[in-house]
């Protein structure tokens, strides 16, 4: 179909890039979600006034281009703190915080969606705060939050294309490298785009499905 100079080795190279995209995404989403839950619960428990410093810090991660966050974190950890960190580590740290900042809001929204009366009922049965959180709030909030969370995870995967600035060769960067050598921008970009699409689309659909199903009851 296409007359192309693309070799198997090049596909392996692309696959490595895709692998990097996935690894960075998975690490950041997991770490970011754990942090996000912690931040979200703290944010909810403290209320808007006491949690103001936390809100401010998290807001920063949502108000500055990810590209700048990466460059700054890179410069800060390396140049200023002189920490000997790989680009991969920096990428994961920044993306995790970025994820956490959004995730915290999702978590808070989820918790707030659990009716106060339901929680009162749990407490009045003698359940402790922790039991209430685990047995009642967590499962109910998850229903509200999961669709948005899937959207967030996919967003992080797409945004991970920016970690090239800290010398991580992920999918889009691999594609650019191959474009350099092979000069077939259109074909290569199509392959790259298709990859993102194939991962993102079904999951996004699944999120939409969950949202629809759970908003009914």
């Amino acid at each position, binding site marked *: 179909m296409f007359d192309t100079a693309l070799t198997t080795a090049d596909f392996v190279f692309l696959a490595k890039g895709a692998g990097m995209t996935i690894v960075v995404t998975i690490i950041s989403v997991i770490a970011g979600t754990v942090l996000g839950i912690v931040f979200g619960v703290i944010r909810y428990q403290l209320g808007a006034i006491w949690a103001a410093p936390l809100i401010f810090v998290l807001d920063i991660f949502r*108000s*500055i*281009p990810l590209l*700048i966050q990466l460059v700054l974190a890179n410069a800060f950890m390396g140049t200023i703190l002189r920490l000997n960190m790989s680009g991969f580590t920096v990428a994961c740290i920044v993306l995790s915080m970025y994820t956490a900042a959004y995730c915290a809001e999702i978590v808070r929204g989820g918790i707030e969606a659990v009716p106060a009366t339901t929680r009162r009922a749990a407490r009045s049965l003698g359940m402790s705060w922790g039991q209430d959180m685990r047995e009642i709030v967590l499962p109910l909030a998850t229903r509200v939050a999961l669709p948005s969370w899937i959207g967030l995870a996919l967003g992080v995967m*797409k945004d991970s*294309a920016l970690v090239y600035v800290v010398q991580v060769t992920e999918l*889009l960067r691999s594609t650019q490298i191959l474009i350099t050598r092979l000069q077939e*921008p259109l074909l290569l970009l199509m392959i790259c785009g298709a990859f993102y699409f194939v991962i993102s689309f079904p999951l*996004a659909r699944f999120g939409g499905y969950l949202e629809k199903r759970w908003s009914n009851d």
Partner: protein
Amino acid sequence: MLPGSCETAMFNYTFQWKQAMARLPQMLDGAVVTMQVAILSMVLGILLAIILTMFRLSGIRILSAVAKTWVEIARNTPALFQIYMAHFGLGSFGLHLSPFLSILIGITFNNAGYLTENFRGALKAIPDTQTRAARSLGMGAAGAFRHVVLPQMLRISFLPMTNQMVWAILMTSLGVTVGMNTDLYGVTQDLNALTFRTFELFALAAVIFYAITKIVTLGARLIAARLFRY
């Protein structure tokens, strides 16, 4: 540690805030370009999203397929990819766009996709009886949409639109990949190449970006308060 106030030493690194502050006017010029791109891409994005929404509602299969494809590609591929595609992808067809146009088209494409999806949600929240009421007053389908449904749809999706605007501002930073060097990120990067004061320059850019997004969200709130008094 006030930027510009002094040269601060921290660990082994000596901050040179003055150098960065001296470039502030250039960076603010960049911020203006960033805002131009963001605002234009929003205006165009909203118009396109309205058109795509009408495509979806039209019931004409090919039109709703166009809208669907647009939305799915915009939502399921990286913005950086979309912008790169607008420049080099279209470039392979001999369509040459300036960096400004490339980034504008890239972000507009993205905005339109996300907003169309938002509008769909907003439409669901407007009861059917609204259209019925308008139609029974003798308005045509277009009139009912324009005078009754559309204003309510825009109001319901005002908050998502504000978020999208913030996104658009942040996305302008991707313009560098298509040769843009007049926006805030591009200017910062050029200055960085010149002086290599990476941390100071990008920290300053970060502060400017933060300020812009805050002003925009605040402004949006004021506008909402004025526009939507019901």
